[in-house]
């Protein structure tokens, strides 16, 4: 019986978080970033951080390489701390889809889940520890009949920089000059 009031309380608290309707009966498009696990990277060496995004149901965003010069590509921009170099971002290929508003035309889009890979390389002298990287994913979303102004999603994650592991090569005692038979 105690579960009922708890459930009611949870529903009430979560009610405002239900996707908002903006304008005349339309949902606001949402692109979200899944929590990014901390990636451990050896200093002086590049590592890849994977960022998983989700486009809200019923919406699509342009891929990084849309088919028209006028369409706004999805693009990640990151600001790195000093001595952490942000390298190339790998974008997945877009999915070629046609939409009811242009059945004869294919657009290169992302919908549902997609993952970007970011190369991060701490310089060799970086002090080991956690470093935060911040940036934005710029995207422009549409549904089947309308498009929404470009938006920027904050992207924040951490990397853990560690020293290179020292590999100890054990010598074969048989080869030791001090080995005695």
């Amino acid at each position, binding site marked *: 019986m105690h579960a009922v009031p708890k459930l009611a309380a949870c529903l009430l*608290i979560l009610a405002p978080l239900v996707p908002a309707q903006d304008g005349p009966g339309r949902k606001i498009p949402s692109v979200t970033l899944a929590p990014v696990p901390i990636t451990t990277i050896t200093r002086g060496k590049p590592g890849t951080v994977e960022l998983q995004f989700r486009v809200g149901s019923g919406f699509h965003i342009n891929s990084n390489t849309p088919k028209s010069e*006028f369409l706004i590509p999805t693009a990640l921009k990151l600001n790195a701390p000093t001595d952490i170099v942000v390298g190339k971002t790998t974008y997945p290929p877009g999915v070629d889809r046609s939409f009811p508003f242009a059945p004869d035309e294919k657009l290169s889009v992302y919908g549902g889940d997609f993952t970007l890979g970011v190369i991060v390389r701490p310089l060799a002298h970086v002090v080991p520890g956690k470093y935060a990287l911040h940036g934005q994913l710029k995207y422009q979303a549409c549904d089947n*009949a309308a*498009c*929404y102004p*470009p938006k920027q999603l904050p992207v924040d994650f951490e990397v853990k920089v560690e020293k290179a592991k020292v590999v100890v090569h054990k010598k074969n005692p048989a080869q030791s000059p001090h080995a005695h038979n």
Partner: protein
Amino acid sequence: MKRDPVVIILVAMVVTIMLVFGFHMVRPSADQAALAGANLKGNMAPEFTLQSLDGKTVHLVDFRGKAVLLNFWATWCEPCKIEMPWFVELQKQYGPEGLQVVGIAMDDASQEDIAKFASNMGVNYPILIGKEAVGDAYGGVQFLPATFYIGRDGKVVDKVFGLKGRGEIEENIKKALAEGQAVQARR
């Protein structure tokens, strides 16, 4: 310690009300704009002064006596691109009867890019460089395309958000042409 379920529900309700109130406090402009857009039908279309692509200053009132199809669009809006050839044809067809299509580009693109896009689309009607304040006056224009049909008397006959079929656009044009006929007759 046993918690009273009534107290838990009351606390939850208070928190919910605070969250909802706070949520709406941070975005009053969007809601007010949407409300403004919803209330436009039957009222005078908000006046504006904007620059056209060819450098002219254009006021909405300049078109009084004509039915105006006011189309908010952007170069990045694919559905907008579908409508534009229809507007070109409809301007040719209904222009002699008193229709004036007017495009307002709600774009971050440069004026050159907007002009290039419009030229590629063969646009035969004025394209104005939009301002956020004008969009807000028309309800925020939170997504595109957004089209307002204005009668010859300057009143909003209808508003349509998102892409609709050519047939529906034509029907709205006919309504706008019919609206305020008396105004035209008096001129």
